[in-house]
């Protein structure tokens, strides 16, 4: 299935795919990140239960230097 991850098309083998598996596939841990799925914030306490489906749009965000 195809998803949009941070604005880029990604192909995943499994539909649905656990969010944590998707993050792990990118080498990302859950510490220090926030996930927005289809323009809805996924709270950190809900990430373990979250599943990603075909055509989902996922934004994985973190803090950066800024003014």
């Amino acid at each position, binding site marked *: 299935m195809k998803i949009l991850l*941070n*604005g880029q098309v990604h192909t995943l083998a499994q539909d649905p795919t656990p969010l944590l598996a998707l993050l792990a596939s*990118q*080498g*990302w*841990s859950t*510490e*220090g*990140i*926030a996930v*927005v799925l289809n*323009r809805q*914030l996924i*709270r*950190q306490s809900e990430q373990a239960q979250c599943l990603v489906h075909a055509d989902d749009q996922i*934004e*994985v*965000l*973190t*803090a*950066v*230097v*800024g*003014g």
Partner: protein
Amino acid sequence: MMDVLALCRQSPIWLGTAHYPSPEILQQAVAGSGCSLLTVGLRRMTAQQTDAAWFSRWLANSGCHILPNTAGCHSVDEAVLLAQVGRELFKTPLIKLEIIGDDYSLAPHMGRLVTATAALVADGFQVLPYCTEDLVMCQELIDAGASALMPWGAPIGTGQGLRNPLALAELRQRFATLPMLVDAGLGKPSQAAQAMEMGFDAVLLNTAVAKASDPVAMAQAFAWAARAGRQAYLAGMMQPSECARASTSLLDRPFWQQ
């Protein structure tokens, strides 16, 4: 609820975290200036990024309150969602609300700021909008529930100082009890002192400190200037006069023949 005014009293300078030569220099600038609050941005993870947590951990150990921003947002929906992300990451109700209305000057979109402020306040946020000095729109931001006003001194990163000092002073006078900071555009410590002399409660700085030849010394210089300005404001400054007034008495002058 966070007491924004108390944060200003802890330190009259708040610092952005961008453009520093290294995290160590940022840390020294924070320590040397006594800064109590740091602003941060929120961006996508990149494919090369394997440890998002180091910056969050660094911030947690900085001893400062963290103020996430919504920099780069152009719409109300983007800003509201990014504010929620900031709250999730930092467990703070504070958000520096930025909605850009003009890409060239990075001027804030005041109408959208009002709408977003109302939405965020309804969701439990304490909103600190980065705004212009427009008196009527600032009143609308206050009516929408803004916890503070953060009018620009000049466009972000320009170092031009207070481009519209009369309007800023009027804003300060009209909303005398609301926490108010000058955010953006300051380039020199004297400009921070000028803002504080007007009665602003703090200044938010980034480029002027981070891009200095010696950011640590510049952070201290800004802190001293801001404190001096605050002290002068509290001390009650003399009013300018059209006429000269001799400091030394004109009575009993020597060599004067009646």
